[in-house]
């Protein structure tokens, strides 16, 4: 067992636990905090994959920006109180959960049968995940989607103003 494997094991356990805690917590603030922890563990898992840039952006964007927004909303709306769970879950919930577990099982199974044998990161992988390599690809190959996504951000800005401003 190398250090990476050990690290991955610990991070994976924490990631699953914090994910479950996000979904199960009665208190929205507790949910949000678990989610922040989850984002940090994912960043750690990205590091075991040697994807440094994504790991950094993960912390900056998700844990930094999006979660601040969510926590802000929880505080603003003062919905930090405990939530009653749904009494007898509807048939959709049960079917959905069953289908979800099947999906996870299926992906896991195919991953172990189909993909098995890919144990080692290729030697160049430390280079693939650097800011330099990604920037090169982003601004050469994927310049068009990069410009196109600015439309999306513009739409989001306009939309947030329209929906949330008291008086337009």
């Amino acid at each position, binding site marked *: 067992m190398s250090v990476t494997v050990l690290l991955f094991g610990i991070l994976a356990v924490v990631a699953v636990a914090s994910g479950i805690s996000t979904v199960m917590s009665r208190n929205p603030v507790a949910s949000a905090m678990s989610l922040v922890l989850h984002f940090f563990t994912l960043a750690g898992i990205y590091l075991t994959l040697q994807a440094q840039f994504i790991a950094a952006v993960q912390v900056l964007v998700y844990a930094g920006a999006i979660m601040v927004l969510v926590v802000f909303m929880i505080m603003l709306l003062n919905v930090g109180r405990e939530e009653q769970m749904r009494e007898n879950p509807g048939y959709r919930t049960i079917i959905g959960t069953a289908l979800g577990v099947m999906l996870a099982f299926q992906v896991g199974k195919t991953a172990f049968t*189909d993909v098995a044998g890919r144990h080692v990161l290729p030697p160049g992988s430390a280079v693939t995940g650097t800011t330099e390599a990604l920037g090169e690809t982003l601004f050469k190959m*994927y310049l*068009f989607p990069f410009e*196109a996504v600015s439309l999306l951000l513009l739409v989001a800005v306009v939309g947030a103003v329209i929906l949330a401003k008291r008086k337009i």
Partner: protein
Amino acid sequence: MLQDFLNSAPIPLLSALATLVMLLDAMKRDGARIVFGFSVFSLTAAMAAAIYTMFLPDKTTAFNNMITCGGYGAYFDIVFCLGGVLTLLAARPFLLASNTEHGEFYSLILFSICGMFLIAHSNNLLTLFIGIEVMSVSFYILSGYLRTSRFSIEASLKYFLLGAFITGFLVYGMALIYGSAGALGYNEIYQAVQGETGARFPMILLLGMGLLIIGLSFKSAIFPFHQWAPDVYQGAPTIVTAFMSTAGKAAAFSAFIPILAVLTPESSSPVAAKIGMLLAVLSAATMLVGNISAVVQKNIKRMLAYSSVAHAGYMMMGLAAGSVRGASGIVFYVTAYMFMQIGAFILISALERGSEERYQNLEDYAGLAKKHPVMAALMSVFMLSLTGIPPFAGFFGKYYLFTAAIESGYTWLTIIAVISSVISVYFYIGLIVAMYFRESDVQEQDSRPGLAGISLVISAAGVIILGVIPQFIDKIAKSLF
């Protein structure tokens, strides 16, 4: 680079103009009229650019194979722009009547059309994803546009939560396809899937494809992912519903056709047969569920929403057929459906005149022929076309799709389609009967459609012209593949 811009002219042009529309609105106080005029102009310009690129001599790609130019995409661009213009013309009287006219509405419509352009032109999973998101996020906002209305905001919330949920599946599907094919571009994926060695991980590819089909099915409201449609279409402002249920659906299908062509292996293989059968079953279920649910509806928007589910089922027949005839049938049907569905919804929006109470229930339409003979006549045209009665556009749309399905060996699917069309007669013709042969005791004040009248006339003309000379569009549609 310049050549890329010229070949893909509609996309950069409309993106720039849409941003300008937004700026214009910010600069000019109370300038909604100018913003409106400029928006219509922008769409017309984009349409002209699309017509120009459609006749490019050869089919090329632009920006490192991120998008395709001309041909297929350009045809859909024209359809989207047409839908946009019809919506905008009807939107102004609608918004003025409810006293909610803001320039942002027009720029959001333009932005959503930019997203549809990206979808129709996408030649890369990334472009497709961004296109879908630009369109969907605009729709979430537009359906909640009347934010003080409980209906509107409820529709918006439901649409957003379910839409974002399904986005997760969509991206997961894309990720698995990427992992299996090793690339995001359609060309590379095609080579990986069709090549001699096949995809790296065939099972992962199938799973990814399934998830991607789920995602796109949601966007086009196909059973069992249609349940958002009635609520959202009923709650959203009627004019937004008109746009979402036509252009939005057309965009989803414009993504469906190329992605299935890329991912389905050669038509003789067993996997292809299985995928075709899956699509056929989905199609049959969609049209039956849509039409049967529409029968029991009391609210007209809800009824049309279920009928739009059924129409997605008809279009799905073309996908199941998996042939050029099927694809061109979808293209024709999308065009015909655009006119008839948008016409019906715009007519409702014109009758509503800014109130969320008037003309919502089917019984409100009793005796409409006496009060508004022209409106009743136009509504009858749209309803007859939606039923699929000749000589209107809907008939030929169904005809092309049915023959495509039969040619590919799906006779049972065609029989189900005919049965469900017969079911749909009940509520479409029922509305006409109510308008003409039932009396109403409600006194009605004057209800002039204003600019919406132009949209209505264009839609009705489109329905009739497509019904009289369907060969014209059919020929163009066939030349796209």
